[in-house]
């Protein structure tokens, strides 16, 4: 049964909406937007108080950027500078007017206090001219547009007197957003709608932000209606969640431009041989990964370019349009045979005569990954390869990952408005470090100057044609040389229900990821409408 009782403590204007996270105790109030672990950021309620300049649709990057606090957003062609015009008629929730000075102030903070620049934007200059602010960057921001525009703007009149922004608890968070903090409590945080919000009237009068101690507890809460909206991976989503209220419960995993991928050590055996990499790539069953490791609750990565669909479709080069991953052990074997591999009985022997084995490792407790590598290890058997599964503790694994002390691991890629991050993370020479030194990405030490150059060109180019060509090169190298093996999509997950409110983003209207902890949540909050 569904007991929606608790969540719909209906006031006269509508039901409250409970937004939940599985992050454990909230402990202390801190509405500091700079610290990812402050209560405001962790629970995400600051996203309903503070607003970004513009909204980049990460689930459909080809969409136009939606201006938000900036009424106009103009990039230079090389994306090294952006001019932002402050929106008129916006007020802070303490009554002050919002102006371009606030934008200027916020971006200047990153230059005076570089430690706050956690997105590594590298701002070199901020200038203001009346209503418009121009921010100049050290590099091209083409693939980081979202990170620039999603920066939430802070009120200058509050923050200019703050000595140490990192430890300021910001007890009365002032923002331009639709909601104000009305009550903080370690159990739940209550936000109420502003009636003077610039964007107009809001359907949801009250928001509650609640934290559960783990995923299981959160799933229980979503299933029985204690919580309405969450960004949470729900194992076994159908019976555990959807079936509890098939009419209203929605679980939407919208692929963004990020994937789970198997990094393989391209410097050591056996993955230093591209033929073996290709063969392995041919036996990994992505559908199985999505179905079993991720419980059928995420889309399958199907394009051989590794780009998730449909979000990545516009970026897939003509050559690979429609080409999808297929499990083909025979093809893989013949590839290997051609490369000089033989079989002793059932086990694969490499050209030098050594049996082929490798170890897959992911941290213990990372349950979907562990399932994932178990599946891959099974798949490797079909080639006659003995693959072992290691699950060290996460710190050990993390260190080994950085120094390249592994043969194969599962890892994610960053996400962005373009496929740049995704590919760069897997094959870019700019991450390259010798084995033993800690690398931040390209853990497999894939060393291809051509790929590095193409990626550079893609992100720094001043026109779309050059970009397109560069991306084509990147994809060709990716497919031909298999620097890493994508195994699954890494979607933006949202679980919510339509009992009280409709207007959520979804398959048919993917205007934003349904993730309440993103700066884009403000868009969803303004789009919601009462259900009847």
């Amino acid at each position: 049964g569904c007991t929606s009782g608790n969540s719909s403590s209906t006031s006269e204007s509508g039901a409250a909406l409970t937004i939940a996270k599985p992050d454990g105790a909230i402990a202390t109030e801190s509405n500091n937007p700079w610290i990812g672990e402050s209560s405001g950021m962790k629970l995400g309620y600051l996203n309903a108080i503070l607003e970004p300049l513009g909204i980049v649709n990460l689930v459909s990057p080809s969409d136009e950027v939606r201006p938000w606090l900036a009424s106009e957003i103009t990039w230079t062609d090389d994306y090294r500078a952006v001019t932002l015009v402050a929106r008129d008629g916006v007020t802070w929730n303490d009554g002050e007017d919002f102006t371009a000075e606030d934008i200027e102030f916020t971006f200047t903070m990153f230059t005076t206090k570089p430690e706050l620049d956690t997105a590594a934007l590298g701002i070199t200059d901020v200038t203001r001219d009346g209503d418009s602010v121009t921010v100049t960057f050290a590099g091209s921001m083409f693939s980081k547009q979202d990170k620039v525009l999603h920066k939430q703007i802070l009120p200058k009149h509050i923050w200019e007197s703050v000595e140490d922004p990192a430890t300021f608890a910001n007890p009365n968070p002032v923002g331009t957003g639709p909601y104000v903090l009305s009550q903080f409590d370690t159990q739940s945080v209550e936000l109420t709608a502003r009636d003077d919000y610039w964007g107009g009237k809001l359907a949801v009068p009250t928001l509650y932000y609640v934290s559960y101690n783990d995923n299981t507890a959160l799933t229980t809460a979503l299933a029985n209606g204690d919580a309405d909206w969450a960004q949470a991976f729900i194992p076994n989503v159908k019976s555990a969640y959807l079936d509890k209220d098939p009419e209203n419960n929605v679980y939407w995993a919208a692929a963004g431009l990020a994937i789970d991928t198997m990094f393989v050590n391209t410097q050591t055996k056996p993955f230093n041989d591209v033929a073996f990499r290709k063969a392995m790539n041919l036996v990994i069953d992505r559908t199985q990964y999505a179905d079993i490791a991720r419980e059928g609750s995420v889309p399958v990565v199907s394009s051989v370019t590794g780009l998730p669909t449909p979000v990545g479709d516009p970026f897939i080069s003509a050559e690979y349009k429609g080409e999808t991953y297929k499990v083909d052990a025979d093809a893989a074997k013949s590839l290997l045979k051609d490369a000089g591999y033989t079989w002793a009985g059932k086990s694969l022997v490499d050209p030098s005569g050594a049996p082929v084995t490798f170890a897959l490792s992911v941290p213990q407790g990372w349950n979907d990954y562990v399932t994932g590598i178990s599946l891959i290890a099974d798949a490797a058997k079909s080639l006659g390869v003995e693959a072992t599964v290691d699950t060290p503790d996460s710190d050990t694994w993390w260190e080994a990952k950085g120094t390249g002390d592994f043969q194969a691991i599962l890892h994610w890629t960053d996400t962005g408005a373009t496929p740049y991050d995704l590919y760069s993370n897997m094959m870019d020479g700019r991450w390259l470090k010798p084995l033993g030194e800690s690398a931040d990405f390209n853990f497999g030490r894939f060393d291809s100057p051509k790929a590095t150059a193409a990626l550079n060109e893609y992100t720094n180019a001043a026109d779309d044609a050059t970009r397109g060509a560069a991306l084509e090169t990147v994809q060709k190298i990716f497919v031909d040389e298999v620097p890493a093996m994508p195994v699954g999509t890494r979607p933006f997950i949202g679980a919510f229900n339509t009992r009280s409110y409709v207007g959520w983003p979804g398959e048919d209207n993917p205007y934003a990821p349904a993730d309440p902890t993103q700066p884009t949540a403000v868009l969803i909050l303004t789009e919601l409408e009462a259900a009847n």
Partner: protein
Amino acid sequence: MTHKRNAFGRLGQTFAMFRNGKSVAGLSILGAFCLVAIFGDWIAPYGPLDKDFTALRQAPSWVHWLGTTHMGEDVLSQIIYGTRGVLVVGFTAGVIATFIAVGIGVTAGYVTGWRSESLSALTNVFLVIPGLPLIIIIASQYENPSLLLISSVLAITGWAWGGRVLRAQTMSLRNRDFIQAARANGEPLYRIIAVEMLPNLTAIIASSFVGTVIAAVLGLTTLAFIGVIPITNLNWGTILFWAQQNGAFPDFWWWYVPAGLCIALLGMALSLINFGIDEYVNPRLRSAGERARAMRKKGFVLSDRVTAVRPRATDDDSTRQ
């Protein structure tokens, strides 16, 4: 002839504490688990990690007696294979912890003055240190912590209680006349501890051993459940971990109920053994428990505070009936 009797008699006395109904019941259950652990490979219908992708999350059936996991692994086989890990860790941890506890506790009890106090302080420090982070920290020093390492860590965090009990007991023993007599006979220290004292402590050592085994088994499963221990060490805790991570609670009962019951059953068996030992150490408990039923049958009301009067004649009648 006399020698034989001697040897057997001694053995008999050493294990006399296991010779009562409760201990025997506990030992039988434990024995069954041991057999499962040893012969797991033969008993289990499938490999523990064999995946059958056509049978995901299936309820118990004739093919899979206890159903399957999200990867189509056979739950029964996992439980059978998991037994070994649980028993190995439990017993290794018990042995190590008992060694430390005996070493430190008995020494602390036998010596006096500051030496005793500092050993006792050491024991207290180990009682005070929070176990969980210690386990995480030590486990993280190693790439792929072996069962032995995990057992050692559980032992290190678990010996202190036994050490305290043993110290107290040794302190009361050391002033007993027969220990004094051994001293007066000129027995060397090690012999006094090993030959004169330890046998008298066996029951307490055994009971503290059983106690640490229970604690280690619960600790192991809890750690595995929280995800602190590598799940490659298949055991009942990891089964529960997977079950919980994959949303088995509460719908897929076959996935989590058997493992939990196994842990409880093993714990129960161990505490039955402990009951037995307790009764051996304290014969009053024995007469209270074991004989109680027999006496009730004979018509005694044990809580009676008045001596029963039962003339022999009628007694005979009633027994005959």
